[in-house]
C-alpha cells in the first residue's frame, strides 16, 4: 500500500465480522478501543489454523507439529521485535498482559535494584497497573514514590519531572499515552533525564503501541510493556521489551519448565533469554495470533494508522464543542493527543449516559477507567470515554454526538438536568 495515503476504512471494516453485529436494534458503533480492540478475520483465522493444523507444545518435541508450532511461535516474536524496532528477538518476553509485564519489572529488576531511601518516579496519568506495583515496592523497600502531576492543559508537568528525577531516582515509570486523557507524553525526555542519574526508564506502551509508530531504540527506554488485545490481537497475551544488557543480569521471576538450563535435585541453572522469563508452556496460540495482528498493522503502516486517528480525533473534538453540559478531560486539541476522548456531563452520571448510548448500539467506556486518582483529581468520580481505532469513521462520531444529544434530551425530560 502506498505510504501516506489515507486508510481505506471501508475495506478494513470488511475484515471485522463483529462490526456488522446488531446491538439493541442498531448496528454496533464500537468506541471502546482503549479497553480492547476488535479482531480481524486474519487474527481469528490464525487461532483456528493453529488449533486445527499444528497444535503442539513448543521447544520440546522433534516431531513435525512441534517443529511447526515452535517456528510459528518464534516467528511471532520476531514480528513483534521488528514492529517496535527492538534490537533482538531475545529482548521480547511474552507475558499475559501489560499488567504482568509491569509487575515482572517490579518483582525482578526493581526488587534487586531499589532499596531503602531510593526514589521511584511515576506520573498522575498512570493506569492502576502502573501505580500499585510501585506503591507496593515502595512499602517493601522503604523507598519513596513521587508522582509527576498533570498541568492545566492535560500535559505532564515536565518542570516538575526535572525536579523529581534526582540522584536517588532508580526508575521512572510513565505511560506513553494516557488511557483517560489521550495525552502522549515525551517519554524520551524522561528517559534522557533518568539516564543522566543512572536510573532506568519503563514505558507503559499499552495505549501507544497499537496506535502510533513506536521505536524502543529511538525512545531509548529500558523497558516497554504492552498488550496484544488492544492492537487487534487476542486477550491473555502481552509483551515486555527489555534492553538485552539489562535482561541479561535480571534475576528470574517464575520458576519451572522452559526457563531452566539444567536441573539437579539440589539446584538449577537458568536458560538463556528470553526463555528465562517464560516458565511453563507458553500461550502459543495467542502469541502466533499476535504475530498476525502485527502483520495486519504493519501492512497498513503505523504512520497511516496514527494519521487516521489524528484526523478522527480532530473531527470529534470539533463536534464536541457544540454539545451541552459536556466537559472534556485532557488536551482540547489534537496535538500530542491520541484517539481518546474522555468527558463528563454536568448532571448525568456516566453510567446513565452509557446505558442510554447502549440502547442506540453505541459502546463507550464509563467509570473510573482504572485510573481513580487521575479521575478524582478532576473533581469527579466517573467519566465517559470514547476511543477510536482503524475501523472507526467520522460517521460514527456523528452517531455518538447524535446519541449524546438524544440522551441529553431524554434526561432533560426526566428532570435530572
Amino acid at each position, binding site marked *: 500500500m502506498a505510504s501516506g495515503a489515507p486508510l481505506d476504512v471501508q475495506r478494513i471494516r470488511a475484515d471485522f465480522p463483529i462490526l456488522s453485529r446488531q446491538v439493541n436494534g442498531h448496528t454496533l458503533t464500537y468506541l471502546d478501543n482503549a479497553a480492547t480492540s476488535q479482531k480481524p478475520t486474519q487474527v481469528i483465522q490464525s487461532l483456528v489454523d493453529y488449533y486445527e493444523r499444528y497444535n503442539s507444545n513448543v521447544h520440546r518435541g522433534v516431531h513435525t507439529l512441534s517443529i511447526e508450532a515452535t517456528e510459528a511461535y518464534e516467528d511471532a516474536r520476531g514480528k513483534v521485535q521488528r514492529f517496535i524496532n527492538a534490537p533482538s528477538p531475545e529482548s521480547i518476553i511474552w507475558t499475559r498482559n501489560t499488567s504482568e509485564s509491569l509487575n515482572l519489572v517490579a518483582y525482578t529488576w526493581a526488587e534487586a535494584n531499589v532499596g531503602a531511601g531510593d526514589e521511584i518516579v511515576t506520573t498522575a496519568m498512570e493506569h492502576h497497573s502502573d501505580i500499585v506495583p510501585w506503591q507496593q515496592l515502595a512499602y517493601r523497600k522503604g523507598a519513596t514514590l513521587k508522582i509527576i502531576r498533570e498541568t492545566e492543559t492535560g500535559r505532564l508537568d515536565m518542570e516538575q519531572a526535572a525536579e523529581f528525577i534526582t540522584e536517588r531516582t532508580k526508575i521512572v515509570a510513565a505511560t506513553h499515552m494516557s488511557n483517560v486523557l489521550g495525552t502522549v507524553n515525551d517519554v524520551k525526555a524522561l528517559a534522557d533525564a533518568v539516564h543522566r542519574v543512572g536510573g532506568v526508564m519503563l514505558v507503559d506502551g499499552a495505549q501507544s503501541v497499537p496506535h502510533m509508530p513506536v521505536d524502543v531504540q529511538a525512545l531509548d527506554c529500558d523497558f516497554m510493556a504492552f498488550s496484544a488485545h488492544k492492537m487487534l490481537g487476542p486477550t491473555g497475551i502481552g509483551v515486555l521489551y527489555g534492553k538485552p544488557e539489562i535482561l541479561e543480569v535480571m534475576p528470574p521471576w517464575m520458576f519451572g519448565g522452559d526457563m531452566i538450563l539444567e536441573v539437579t535435585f539440589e539446584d538449577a541453572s537458568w536458560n538463556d533469554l528470553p526463555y528465562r522469563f517464560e516458565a511453563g508452556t507458553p500461550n502459543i496460540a495467542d502469541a502466533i495470533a499476535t504475530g498476525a495482528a502485527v502483520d495486519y498493522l504493519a501492512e497498513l503502516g503505523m504512520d497511516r494508522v496514527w494519521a487516521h486517528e489524528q484526523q478522527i480525533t480532530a473531527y470529534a473534538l470539533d463536534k464536541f464543542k457544540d454539545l451541552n453540559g459536556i466537559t472534556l478531560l485532557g488536551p482540547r486539541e489534537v496535538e500530542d493527543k491520541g484517539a481518546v476522548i474522555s468527558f463528563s456531563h454536568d448532571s448525568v452520571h456516566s453510567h446513565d449516559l452509557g*446505558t442510554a448510548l447502549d440502547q442506540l448500539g453505541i459502546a463507550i467506556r464509563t467509570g473510573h477507567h482504572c485510573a481513580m486518582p487521575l479521575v478524582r483529581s478532576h473533581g469527579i*468520580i*466517573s467519566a465517559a470515554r470514547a476511543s477510536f481505532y482503524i475501523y472507526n469513521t467520522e460517521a460514527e462520531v456523528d452517531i455518538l454526538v447524535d446519541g449524546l444529544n*438524544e440522551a441529553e434530551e431524554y434526561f432533560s425530560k426526566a428532570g435530572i438536568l
Partner: protein
Amino acid sequence: MQSGLGDLDELYQEVLLDHYRNPRNTDRLEEPASEVDAVNPFCGDEIHMQLGMDGERVAKISVSGQGCSISQATGSLLTEIVEGKTPDEARALRELFRGLMMGEDLTDDQLDELEDSVALQGVRRFPVRIKCALLSWSALSDALDKVAPAG
C-alpha cells in the same frame, strides 16, 4: 429521527427519578450507632450510610453518596422502608429486594413490603446495572451487622 431511548422508561421510572432528584434522609446523624462506607470497585460509586438505633429498632437512617441515578435513588428509597424495622426485619427486606433484582417471582404481599422500591424492578432488564441497585442494600447489611450480628 426515530428515538431509540423509549425502552429506558422501564429503567428510569418516575419514582426513581424523584428520589434521585430529591434524595430523602440525607442529613448526617450526630451519634450513629453504626456507620458504613460502601464503594462499588467497578465504577467508583459511593454510599455513606448511618444507622441510629432505638432499642431493637432502626430509629433513623441516613444515606448519602455519589454515583449514578440507580445507586443513589436506591439508597434514598431504602431509607423509607427500613426505618422502624428490627435488624432481622431489615435483612428480610434485603432478601426480598435481592430476589426482585434476580427476577424471582414475589407474592403481592412481598411486593407491598418493598413499597416504592418495587419501581426498581425495571433494572432487571439492564443486568449490568443490578450492582448499582444492590450497593446501598449491601451497605445496609454491613451496617446492621455492626449493631446486631446476624444470628
